[in-house]
């Protein structure tokens, strides 16, 4: 039948075409959702995340975790979406097939904060049963945060299988958070939820309880009592927290002031360039880190340990130089010393500005100095903790040095009675230079630590000079223990005043208190007794 053949062919072709066109329609909601990533529109991305997370597709987890890490690439031209793995291999996100390379026109799918929250929530319910304990704990916590009803089933399933105690608690809390906001949960379930949150007892639990909206009367009542009990325990913790912050601020003040306690306190030189020694120490840290970054990236975590002795040497050498070239001509003339060192501080600032540029320099935190841990209800950051330990160590070493070494003995002799010491055969001018160098070197070490919490700019020193003088004068000139007690007293007083009076008024109040105190005890907390005072 020759006449039939073309017709048959036609119908065959037609049906083939039909199948070809119909294929995308069969592609299903999952593939459609994946294609939405290519639209570069935040609402489309959010919709896609929702659909994919609840699709049950095994590609859901790789896609959403890639989205979170910025490894999900979308090509706006072909509307294709790719997951690039951490190992450099890529797959087509819609089919899961491996692809040789991602086209150049593809770019990472963008996120904003709202999306990051929904990605976290989606990943949370997807990873609740992950084999890794840490991932499960994180998943439970992010479900707790998002507390969306859809996650309840996943939480219940995970709870039934969970054996780890802390993950189990976190899951229980996540479940409580969901039930509290679920409109059709029973009163009993809700009361249990309130009890669970009360046991958690932190700010986030309180946030949930205060923001839970309309509830049955019994639940509202239970929540109110839970809130007041959490509040009273948090009030205690906030006192502990203030004390910790005070210690931490005190350690920074002490660190900045120890060097000055030697140059000003022990030698009596009004050293306005002290802050600049701190700054030089911070810039030494920057240089050390730059060298490490370019040459030995593996050593980055040790950068501070390397910087400490170097900063001591650099700042100390500059200190000796200053003493030899300027200050030794000005002993006994405090006003000239003040002006000369102040001028010097400007010179040093501008020198650093010319060498390194006026902008801030990036000094990184080594991994052991980043982040924080929770102690009860307070957050303790590692950098502050290390700085406290470091300060106490520097203080102890300095004290031991003055007490037990020959140089320390000579220093004390010279500062107590210069002429007598000279008669005993001590080279007083050499001791002066070394003492000033020691004070400057310690200021340099302080710079290494301060580079971790403040910005490294030519102005770094300025912000510490007044505080340092305050601490030394308050603590008692010429007494290292006075500096220690003075620094911690001021730190703690400041931190207890700050929440009440605000940072600006708090600082003013501290200054007024010190002025009043100095009126009563002009020599500070621990006044030196004996002949040194008259000298």
């Amino acid at each position, binding site marked *: 039948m020759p006449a039939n053949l073309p017709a048959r062919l036609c119908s065959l072709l037609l049906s083939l075409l039909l199948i070809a066109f119909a294929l995308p329609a069969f592609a299903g909601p999952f593939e459609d959702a994946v294609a939405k990533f290519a639209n570069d529109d935040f609402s489309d991305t959010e919709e896609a995340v929702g659909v994919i997370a609840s699709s049950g597709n095994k590609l859901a987890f790789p896609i959403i975790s890639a989205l979170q890490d910025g490894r999900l690439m979308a090509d706006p031209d072909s509307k294709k979406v790719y997951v690039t793995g951490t190992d450099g291999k890529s797959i087509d996100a819609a089919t899961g097939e491996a692809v040789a390379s991602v086209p150049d026109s593809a770019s990472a799918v963008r996120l904003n904060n709202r999306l990051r929250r929904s990605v976290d929530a989606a990943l949370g319910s997807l990873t609740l049963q992950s084999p890794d304990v840490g991932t499960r704990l994180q998943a439970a916590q992010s479900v707790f945060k998002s507390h969306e009803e859809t996650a309840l089933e996943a939480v219940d399933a995970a709870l039934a299988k969970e054996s780890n105690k802390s993950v189990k608690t976190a899951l229980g809390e996540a479940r409580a958070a969901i039930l509290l906001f679920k409109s059709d949960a029973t009163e009993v379930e809700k009361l249990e939820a309130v009890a669970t949150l009360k046991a958690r007892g932190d700010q986030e639990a309180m946030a949930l309880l205060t*923001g839970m909206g309309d509830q049955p009367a019994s639940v509202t009542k239970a929540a109110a009592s839970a809130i007041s009990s959490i509040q009273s325990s948090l009030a205690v913790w906030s006192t502990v927290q203030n004390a910790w912050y005070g210690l931490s601020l005190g350690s920074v003040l002490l660190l900045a002031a120890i060097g000055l306690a030697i140059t000003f306190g022990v030698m009596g030189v009004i050293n306005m360039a002290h802050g600049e020694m701190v700054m030089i120490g911070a810039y030494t840290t920057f240089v050390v880190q730059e060298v490490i970054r370019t040459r030995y990236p593996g050593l980055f975590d040790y950068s501070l340990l390397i910087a400490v002795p170097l900063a001591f040497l650099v700042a100390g050498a500059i200190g000796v130089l200053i003493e030899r070239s300027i200050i030794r001509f000005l002993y006994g003339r405090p006003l000239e010393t003040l002006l000369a060192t102040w001028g010097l501080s400007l010179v040093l600032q501008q020198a650093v*500005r010319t060498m390194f540029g*006026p902008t801030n320099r990036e000094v990184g935190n080594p991994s052991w100095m980043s982040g924080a841990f929770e102690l009860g209800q307070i957050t303790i950051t590692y950098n502050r903790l290390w700085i406290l330990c470091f300060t106490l160590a520097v203080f102890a070493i300095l004290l031991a040095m003055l007490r037990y070494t020959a140089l320390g003995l000579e220093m004390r002799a010279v500062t107590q009675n210069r002429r007598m010491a000279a008669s005993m055969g001590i080279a007083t001018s050499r001791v002066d230079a070394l003492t000033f160098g020691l004070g400057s070197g310690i200021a340099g070490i302080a710079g290494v630590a301060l580079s971790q*919490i403040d*910005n490294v700019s*030519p102005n770094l020193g*300025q912000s510490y000079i007044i505080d340092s003088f305050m601490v030394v004068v308050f603590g008692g000139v010429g007494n290292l223990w006075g500096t220690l007690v003075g620094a911690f007293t001021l730190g703690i007083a400041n931190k207890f005043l700050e929440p009440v009076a605000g*940072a600006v008024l708090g600082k003013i109040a501290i200054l007024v208190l010190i002025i009043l105190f100095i009126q009563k005890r002009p020599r500070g907390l621990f006044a030196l007794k004996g002949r040194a005072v008259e000298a």
Partner: protein
Amino acid sequence: MLTKSTRDRAASFSRRGVLAATAGLMLGLASLTGAKAADDTIKVGVLHSLSGTMAISETTLKDTILFLIDEQNKKGGVLGKKLEAVVVDPASNWPLFAEKARELITKDKVSVVFGCWTSVSRKSVLPVFKELNNILFYPVQYEGEESERNVFYTGAAPNQQAIPAVDYLMKEEKVKRWVLAGTDYVYPRTTNKILEAYLKSKGVAQEDIMINYTPFGHSDWQTIVADIKKFGSAGKKTAVVSTINGDANVPFYKELGNQGIKAKDIPVVAFSVGEEELAGIDTKPLVGHLAAWNYFQSIKTKDGSNEKFIKDWQAYTKNPKRVTNDPMEAHVIGFAMWVKAVEKVKSTDPDKVIDALPGIEAPNLTGGVSKMLPNHHITKPVFIGEIKGNGQFDVVWKTPGLVAGDAWSKELDGSKDLIGDWVGKKCGNFNTKTNKCLGSGS
């Protein structure tokens, strides 16, 4: 000598020849004096701190003006004359700003000055510019409440930065509780006053607003960050609006990162943190925190103007990593406007240029065209950017069109009826209710 020898030679020529020679000589002389006049340059004053606290921000702006002058001179200068920069260093010292401004205008005879960063430095030079009648282009976002005849404000007024940022947080992030944190000086205090009035007009209750001020260069943020955390745990979405200035930002962001406050929990939107400031911090813990500006380095333009500007700037500074930022763009726009106005009136006379400037349009670096308004502020687009891991910003929102800068805030009782209009009313603080110009007394 020249005339004598010419005459000697002329004697051997015919009368006609003498005439021609004289004519030629005169022409030559004319062209010589003409050439001498072309050697004269137009002087442009640059009044930015190159030392002291503000050097960190202002040095870049000095470089920007030098770069723009260099580019303009390559194109043949202005009115056939080359531009010459006169750079002075007011050293972050406010009274010195006034002295240096006087020096620029009276001694160096500059035609225009580009300068200042802090509001207090601007207020310090104002009387000088009024008295000596010169022009100042001020490139930094500021608190508004000012419109002066001699000053052109190319940075953002509060309605071009603060208000749109708050709108974004309200709409996109559904923020219900607000922390207004700032450094204790005039810009944050006025901006926060405006924002507080604006938030209340949007139905935000007093107990949902926390206002916090810190001293300049504040470095111990532990208590305040803990307070923000506590304030944010009241069951309502919370955000921080930061007018924290300069150096204090780095320790603030470090503390936020260390205490684990992520942008998805409590976002911080900053008005003084740009590409330059981020260059000094590891931005990975800050990803997602926001900034509101009228320009970001990362903005892609269809005509490639931003890309070209960045390339030329990096080539000029010989630093392939040098960043660009919002106040730089303000100088680019201001400089282009001044050049256009000078070319329009064919003079650098300040009075003529001041009158010519309103209405002048110049392309901004984000693909639009900004216009100088009668109140001496300009129209600008507003962008909200999220901090990325590489120290740049990703634009997540922008205003549909350009926003006209308000000299006087509509949110404050004292200024809502005032307008600045140097074209029709010839007045910087005209009260539209009473139809009176308040004059310079207020």
